[in-house]
């Protein structure tokens, strides 16, 4: 369960899971959605695979990822997303307030 929480803690990995909800995708298709290098994305995929949240299949030269979320993990993903959005908004408003010089 610890691996699941670790995997869901990162917004990039959460976004990968959201993308996979629409169906299986190749590693290239997923990587194209992010401004990160291939090794970085590969590291994210490894974390997701180790948490058993995605399934990987080799199809010729391409690697295809499929979603492997239980309903409980799906609910956790939605919760983590909601908390992530709220905390990003709070951080953004705090930094805006700091720039303006108000506490």
């Amino acid at each position, binding site marked *: 369960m610890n691996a699941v929480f670790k995997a869901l803690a990162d917004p990039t990995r959460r976004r990968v899971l959201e993308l996979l909800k629409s169906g299986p995708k190749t590693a290239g298709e997923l990587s194209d959605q992010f401004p990160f290098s291939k090794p970085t994305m590969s590291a994210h995929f490894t974390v997701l695979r180790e948490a058993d949240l995605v399934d990987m299949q080799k199809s010729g030269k391409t690697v*295809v990822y499929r979603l492997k979320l239980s*309903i*409980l993990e799906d609910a956790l993903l939605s919760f983590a997303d909601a908390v992530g959005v709220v905390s990003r908004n709070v951080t953004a408003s705090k930094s805006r307030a700091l720039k303006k010089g108000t506490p």
Partner: protein
Amino acid sequence: MMTRKPILSGILFGLLILIVALALKFAAARHLVSVDMPMRAIQILVGLMMALYGSAIPKKLPRFREGDNGLVQSLQRTTGWLLTVAGLGYAAVWALVPLSEAAGWSMAVVGAAIALVAVFVVRTHLAQRAGRATG
């Protein structure tokens, strides 16, 4: 646990239900809990078990095929959500509704979920056939 050792988890859950039933029957006979408590507790456990098994459905992926469009996976996710919510609903009904009406309402909740699953199964089957027909 539910996905990796399904037989063991099933046996453990069965044992848990038996132990809880015996303990509550014993307690009810000694007027420590109300007489309807054993029935309610068992049915709540059954509902939670249904929710747990429903939750595990999307983890059991179909065999990978070239050009997989994710239709079966989508059906599994929908079925998982429906059975999980139905299981939790079943447990909530047995926890909150008067005992005389709980059986009817809980069956209605599960029946509605199963009917919806059947609708989604037929829709997925038709969509797959249409997909195969168009190549």
